[in-house]
């Protein structure tokens, strides 16, 4: 079974083309159906009383005044919910030593971060619930607060969870080769301390859930803005003591997720528990302010790192000491150790070198829990690696592009295993770099930079090569004991009118999953995309699957859809051959009709075939298989992950009087394997770059020393906006994975992975003649001026 992907004129050639998104009209006409659009009879609303303290003992809770508010139905404390909802512990067996205390849906005895739910108020309207929540009197006793990650393990620092013994959640040291020997004998060693700021995902649609419990059926239905409906089905079943088969999670339109909506949140589980207790639908939609204190945070790292090179710039060794603070709990069920673990796995990723040491130290603190957010760990690892590579290049007087050419794995070297023990099936660093240099006209840009400098204008060029982990196998979560599927399935059926319905386990978050699936199914079966309807996000309807995360939708879910579609095509052709007294191999399906593949002449429409199969089956030979529904599943098995690669470049201008950075242009050449929809891939890259640029220049959650989050609004937490974004030029190299017929790897995170490093290197390229360097993100005007020594006091 092959598809001539290289021939754009092949029949049904939808894979590889920009096909209009089937769900776009619905969304732009305001006809989407998000959780908050769903209203059920007897629906109640819940609002949460949240801890104003970063760490406090919870005394008596007086809900008297709250209960008197008109419309209030009930108030729940942590103890109330603990009777119906068991706590969870977010550890994974393969992350050795990871520890975390039991976490409840609503805090019991102690609140451990500002924003942790302490009580829940249920009312007939959200306004009444909020009003009453503000009247719940909680007797708090403030406890010592741990905020600084670097001193979290000091003997004098209080231990947040005494039962755990210390504030260390996880530590991993990876060592390969002779690191000390390589550094001792190196021609040049560069080192720096890097800092990446605490971010959050800021989805357009906040976290939302509506849960109904029907005691007559013994069934729970959750309408949930989630990336992983089947995972949530398991979670609700397990912790609310319901058979898994009696939990149905429905995920309609989702307004962006970026990893934020793939985790288990205590307020969402509490909503489900309350619905079960009250026997009526309960809705929770986070508002923007509580999103900042309760959506997961990420990227809060401090890293000391050094790089050893020889006189020709060849990398000899890399040594990384990474620290991150994850809040008071590891987040269920994926855990909060993954990000640090990724830093260890990904540093030095593009480069062929032998000696590598990396350690991550993951500590508890009294801040919002952190967990996986778009491009988990990648922006950090890429910033460390590319920052050091540029420093070494500058030290040796080697051009940054040339420096990378000398160190990347050659395109003909694969398969290879990196010193971090990552296995690469096939990457294209050299081809990507060549393409980037051509796209950006590197020499002309250097000339422009020099001319600007002569005018006193400080411009910089930054390059960042990267790898990106996509299409994860069970090695990511399953082997650690989490019931998170790495496999995904697709059911494709043909209905009597010749149209096709495909049900997939991967989900639509607004990124175009359904468009991607529709064009794969259209090509796989042989119909036009408008004849394909896609159904996702319903655990009672779709095949079991993992959902959308780690850039797996196209590579895993897309392959399952292709295999199922080809199987349906075979089934249709078997029936057609019987009807036409031909053989399946002498027929094809094109644009919804059975044709003679030699001449393209139509022999039979699918509509007519459907009529016969469904209504006049008596006219077909007895015993002829007529299964116009086919299901296939796909899981990767040759490699733990399908790595992709790419390289980005930033051109920018630094105002050395104000410290303001103006982004002039941005380039990205990436290799996500087979491209299914060029426009969707480009927009994934661009959107990812924007989030990366946000990390480089704007985004930073601030806490004070008492653990109060002090910039929790859209006015104070700055996300990148259109006016500051540069033109972005996106190019592609295609190295399909051989693990699947489709050959697709992930594209959703590459932009975010490389953009911060490219900007950092460009700023430092601009500042280098002035003797300044920045390595602490975001690169605010003030940090740049301080690096330049221009601020007194």
């Amino acid at each position: 079974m092959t598809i001539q992907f290289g021939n754009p004129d092949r029949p049904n050639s939808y894979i590889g083309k920009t096909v209009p998104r089937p769900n776009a009209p619905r969304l732009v006409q305001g006809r989407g159906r998000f959780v908050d659009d769903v209203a059920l009879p007897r629906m109640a609303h819940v609002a949460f009383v949240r801890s104003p303290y970063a760490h406090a003992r919870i005394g008596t809770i007086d809900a008297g005044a709250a209960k008197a508010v008109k419309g209030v139905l009930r108030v729940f404390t942590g103890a109330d919910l603990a009777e119906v909802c068991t706590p969870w512990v977010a550890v994974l067996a393969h992350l050795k030593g990871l520890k975390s205390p039991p976490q409840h849906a609503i805090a019991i005895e102690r609140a451990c971060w500002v924003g942790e739910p302490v009580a829940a108020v249920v009312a007939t309207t959200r306004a009444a619930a909020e009003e009453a929540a503000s009247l719940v009197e909680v007797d708090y006793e403030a406890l010592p607060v741990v905020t600084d990650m670097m001193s979290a393990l000091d003997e004098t620092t209080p231990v947040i969870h005494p039962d755990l013994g210390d504030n260390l959640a996880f530590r991993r040291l990876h060592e390969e080769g002779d690191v000390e020997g390589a550094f001792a004998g190196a021609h040049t060693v560069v080192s720096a301390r890097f800092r990446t700021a605490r971010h959050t995902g800021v989805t357009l649609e906040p976290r939302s859930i509506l849960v109904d419990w029907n005691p007559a059926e013994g069934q729970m239905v959750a309408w949930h803005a989630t990336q992983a409906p089947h995972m949530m089905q398991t979670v609700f079943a397990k912790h609310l003591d319901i058979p898994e088969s009696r939990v149905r999670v429905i995920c309609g339109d989702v307004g962006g997720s970026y990893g934020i909506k793939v985790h288990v949140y205590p307020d969402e589980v509490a909503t489900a528990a309350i619905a079960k207790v009250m026997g009526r639908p309960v809705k929770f939609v986070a508002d923007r302010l509580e999103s900042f204190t309760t959506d997961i945070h990420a990227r809060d790292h401090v890293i000391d790192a050094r790089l050893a090179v020889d006189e020709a710039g060849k990398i000899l060794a890399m040594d990384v000491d990474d620290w991150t603070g994850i809040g008071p709990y590891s987040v269920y069920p994926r855990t909060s150790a993954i990000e640090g673990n990724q830093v260890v796995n990904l540093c030095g990723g593009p480069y062929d070198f032998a000696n590598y040491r990396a350690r991550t130290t993951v500590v508890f603190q009294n801040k919002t829990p952190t967990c996986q957010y778009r491009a988990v760990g990648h922006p950090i690892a890429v910033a460390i690696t590319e920052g050091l590579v540029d420093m070494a290049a500058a030290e040796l007087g080697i051009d940054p592009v040339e420096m990378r050419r000398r160190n990347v794995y050659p395109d003909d070297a694969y398969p290879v295993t990196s010193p971090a023990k990552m296995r690469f099936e096939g990457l294209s660093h050299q081809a990507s770099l060549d393409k980037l240099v051509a796209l950006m006209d590197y020499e002309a840009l250097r000339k422009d930079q020099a001319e600007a400098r002569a005018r006193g204008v400080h411009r910089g060029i930054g390059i960042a090569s990267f790898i990106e982990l996509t299409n994860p196998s069970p090695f990511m979560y399953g082997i650690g004991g989490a019931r998170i599927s790495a496999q995904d399935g697709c059911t494709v059926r043909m209905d009597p009118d010749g149209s096709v319905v495909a049900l997939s386990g991967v989900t639509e978050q607004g990124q175009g999953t359904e468009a991607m699936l529709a064009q794969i199914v259209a090509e796989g079966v042989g119909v036009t995309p408008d004849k394909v309807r896609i159904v996702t996000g319903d655990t009672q309807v779709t095949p079991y699957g993992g959902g959308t995360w780690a850039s797996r939708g196209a590579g895993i879910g897309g392959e399952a859809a292709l295999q199922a579609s080809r199987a349906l095509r075979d089934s249709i052709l078997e029936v057609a051959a019987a009807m036409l007294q031909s053989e399946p191999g002498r027929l094809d399906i094109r644009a919804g009709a059975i044709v003679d593949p030699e001449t393209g002449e139509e022999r039979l429409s699918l509509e007519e075939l459907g009529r016969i199969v469904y209504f006049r089956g008596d006219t077909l030979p007895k015993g002829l298989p007529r299964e116009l529904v086919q299901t296939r599943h796909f899981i990767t098995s040759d490699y733990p992950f399908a790595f992709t690669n790419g390289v980005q470049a930033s051109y920018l201008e630094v105002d050395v009087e104000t410290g303001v950075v103006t982004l002039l242009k941005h380039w990205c050449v990436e290799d996500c394997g087979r491209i299914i929809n060029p426009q969707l891939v480009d927009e994934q890259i661009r959107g990812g770059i924007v989030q990366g640029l946000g990390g480089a220049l704007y985004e930073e959650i601030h806490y004070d020393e008492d653990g109060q989050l002090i910039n929790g609004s859209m006015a104070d937490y700055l996300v990148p906006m259109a006016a500051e974004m540069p033109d972005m030029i996106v190019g592609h190299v295609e190295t399909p994975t051989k693990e699947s017929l489709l050959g697709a790897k992930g594209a959703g995170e590459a932009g975010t992975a490389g953009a911060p490093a490219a900007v950092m290197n460009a700023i430092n390229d601009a500042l280098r003649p002035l003797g300044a360097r920045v390595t602490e993100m975001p690169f605010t005007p003030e940090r740049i001026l301080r690096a330049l020594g221009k601020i007194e006091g």
Partner: protein
Amino acid sequence: MKAAVGGYARARDLRHALELLAQTNGMGRVLAGGQSLVAALNMRLTTGDVLVDISALSECRGVVEDGDTLRIGALTRHAEIGRDPLIAAHAPLLAEATTHIAHAAIRNRGTIGGAIAHADPAAEFPACALALGAVMHVEGLAGAREIPAADFFRDTFETALEEGEILAAITIPKAEPDEVQVIEEVARRSGDYALAGLCLVRRAAGHRVSLFSTGPKPMLATGAMAALDAGDVEGAIAALKGEIDPPSDTQASGAYRRHLAGVLLRRAVARIEGGTR
């Protein structure tokens, strides 16, 4: 979050608005463009307010010439200021300021009177009013008052407006033939409140420099003004840095803002001198 509002009434005219305000037992809150107030309500930073909606008061809207001054109705929207030919001819500072104020959707709703009465220390229009020597025309049931800009701004979000009074109009002296007016600011992103901002006006009587986002209220930098009158730009920058004590927040430290104020003054001077910017 859901706003907890005590009530809402839509005024027919200014007199009606004042009467409505008088009936609210001190809980009255004037709703004009709503671009700051509604956000504050929705964050429950204020609750129980009785909103008196004056947005239909046509007598408080528009720009007219009044002898040597321009009279700007308090309900004139930012976008209208930005495109008004009288403003462009006689108070170009205000027109330029609108290019720094927020985003188009906000400029289409927000009003100059609302911005001045709200007295956000980081807002452009209060500092413009100060630099131009505007006069605030205030109406109350007890009568009308005229308050010079220099006496109007008291503290963060605090003005000389008394309980029950409404800012109805602002008058601004028309620019002299040789007068130059510029505004300079630096914000983290386009449309954000400035990290620091500065208005510079040069007229026959001398220079006027006002600052925003460098303290609890917009202020005139009198030391810098005197130095500029004496032709001493470096002295003006030094004086400016000495006469402000900017706050620190998550966007920038006071020290950065002080440095920035000096840069902005140098750039503003370069502009009015026909320099590079």
